[in-house]
């Protein structure tokens, strides 16, 4: 038989689960001092996450989706983007969002049931897409943004992230299909944390890797250890450079693990083996990077204690800002629907205000 086409999917890992290099580190990321700010960001995210879960447990937040265990992937992706790139998140990539300028109070407002959580006030996030709940639909929006970049001749990249479950969603396929058809500057980051609520990665698809889905659209495909910040950064560097150079889109699969429940509304013990979670803690991203940095003299326990203290304080201030944000007035639900609201909508708005007044004086 003749061969019509051949493909291979590379796998990237630099630091093993104990933080020992398994091969020479890429030149850009060889200097441990350069990685320290990102490590600090990972610690900040984890502190935030624990606080958010606590807020939910005490009734001060709605359902919340934890990012425990995803810190290297999320922070690494954020660190690889330029301000004028565009990011399209799903719903738990706080590490990426923070690097784009989203503030913790905004994340809390969103899960606290307040639309202002999506009105990102600072940094590049101002032009990024909001939180996206319908799985993987954000991938197509990022493709649209990438198409806008291409049509306008801007040297920017659109990045979207979705989960392992998200790669089954038709929108994910549509995004990679159009990225290939138009040769778009698009990076589709698949955050494979092993589970889509209760459905394990193995039940989601017959594909050996999730990265290989990109082959369907002629994209560049990479699988990486998503708990290894160095591998994440290197994979993103390759994908972002290709996109910026006009070489088209990539699917990058980050293999990590959801150390938490799916959300605070979920109880993973119903469907997931405790032993699997325990084993996953041995591979988690923060300890291994700490080991590497400490072994190379770039980080110490004292620094960590001080930084954690600072994180607690910063997050306490954000939580205060969140908790002291008053509920929007009833008319808020009308005020952003149309630029030019129709008269009948304004009449309903007036009626809603009047009803409030009748009821609360």
């Amino acid at each position, binding site marked *: 038989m003749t061969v019509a086409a051949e493909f291979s999917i590379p796998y990237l890992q630099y630091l093993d689960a104990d933080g020992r290099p398994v091969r020479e580190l890429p030149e850009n990321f060889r200097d441990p001092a350069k990685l320290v700010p990102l490590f600090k960001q990972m610690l900040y995210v984890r502190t935030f996450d624990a606080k958010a879960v606590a807020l939910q447990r005490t009734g001060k937040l709605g359902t919340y989706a934890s990012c425990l265990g995803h810190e290297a992937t999320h922070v690494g992706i954020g660190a690889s983007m330029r301000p004028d790139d565009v990011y399209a998140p799903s719903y738990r990539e706080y590490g990426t969002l923070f690097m784009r300028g989203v503030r913790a109070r905004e994340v809390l407002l969103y899960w606290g049931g307040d639309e202002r959580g999506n009105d990102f006030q600072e940094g590049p996030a101002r032009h990024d897409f909001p939180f996206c709940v319908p799985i993987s639909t954000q991938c197509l929006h990022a493709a649209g943004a990438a198409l806008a970049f291409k049509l306008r001749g801007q040297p920017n990249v659109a990045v979207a992230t979705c989960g392992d*479950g998200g790669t*089954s969603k038709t929108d994910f396929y549509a995004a990679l299909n159009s990225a290939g058809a138009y040769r778009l500057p698009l990076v589709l980051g698949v955050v494979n944390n092993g589970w*889509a*609520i209760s459905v394990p990665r193995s039940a989601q698809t017959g594909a050996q890797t999730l990265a290989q889905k990109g082959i369907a659209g002629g994209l560049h495909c990479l699988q990486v250890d998503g708990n290894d910040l160095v591998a994440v950064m290197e994979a993103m560097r390759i994908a972002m450079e290709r996109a910026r150079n006009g070489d088209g889109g990539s699917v990058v699969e980050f293999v990590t693990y959801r150390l938490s429940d799916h959300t605070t509304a979920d109880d993973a013990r119903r469907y997931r083996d405790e032993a699997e979670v325990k084993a996953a803690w041995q591979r988690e991203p923060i300890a291994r990077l700490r080991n590497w940095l400490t072994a190379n003299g770039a980080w110490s326990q004292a620094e960590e204690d001080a930084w954690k203290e600072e994180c607690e304080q910063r997050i306490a201030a954000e939580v205060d800002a969140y908790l002291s944000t008053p509920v929007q007035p009833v008319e808020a639900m009308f005020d952003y*629907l149309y630029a030019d609201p129709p008269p009948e909508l304004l009449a309903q708005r007036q009626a809603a205000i009047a009803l409030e007044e009748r009821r609360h004086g």
Partner: protein
Amino acid sequence: MDEIRSHVPAAPAASDAAARAAGGGEAMTQTPITLIEAITQALAWELSHDESVLVLGEDVGVNGGVFRATAGLQQRFGAQRVLDTPLDETTIAGLAVGLAAQGMKPVAEAQFDGFVYPMLDHLVCHAARLRTRTRGRLHCPLVLRVPWGGGIRAPEHHSEANEAMFTNVPGLRVVMPSSPARAYGLLLAAIRDPDPVIYFEPKRIYRQYKELVPDDGEALPLDVCFVLRDGTDVTLVAWGAQVKEALEAAEVLAQEGISAEVIDVATLRPLDFDTIAESVSRTGRCVIVQEAPRTAGFGAEIAARLAEHSMYDLVAPVERVTGYDTHIPLFRLEMKYLPSVARIVEAAHRAMAHG
């Protein structure tokens, strides 16, 4: 909780006990159950009694569904009968059409109302048409279960009331129970119906109260409205979670000396307009309560039929108490969006000012 008056089959005859025993030996449920438990009970009954029935959806297996509607079913009936699907609603709908066309009776779950849109293509272009397209050679006995509506402080896209997407579609049936007993009986009917049924579940009242629901396999009819409370001054028409608001409003009105009849539409398509018209012919006034955005919601169809058929009965303009013409806001504001007892009572007062 409430008495059902209209078009309801008589209590099971004596021979039913034998039939039940023969049918697998399910005992009468002796303790009251919630609406969602009634759904589980109906699914279990049909899985036991009809081997072509299967349940599919995201997380319906080991996890028993994010709302626990399928809790225990995979353990009891096996992974061949209760299947987790890949995370894609197009897939769920398309597989269900294929399964149904080839002799199975799939009961598919949409995890939340906000996620049904990718299913519409297969439902409208195929499920609803397979019988007419093939002149009856094939048909499509599928059920889509959709947890519906707001009021549970859920995240975005988890609180929609989008039944109007389906009510203009020929070939579909659209059902929405509002009590444990009706949830059980209507779901059995939906599964047994040889045509596609969209079965909306008002999640706000999933666990709101319990009632005795005999596990007797008795279906309720799929084309009747249920009169839940008799009245003479004004007819309150509602469906889904708003039935409870309407009943409470009727209580408030009763204390004021206004007698409100309360009708649970229950099946939106086909609509049993006769029951509504008969009531309005006596009360002369109608308040329609609809959780969905106002304009072009299903309430409009009821009001339209009143305008066509009941003009000479009406002594007051028809009232619609509805969600506003906005998206249901995130949960800090959602209760201000939803129709409330106070708004229903006000509308009834406006109606009472006429005639």
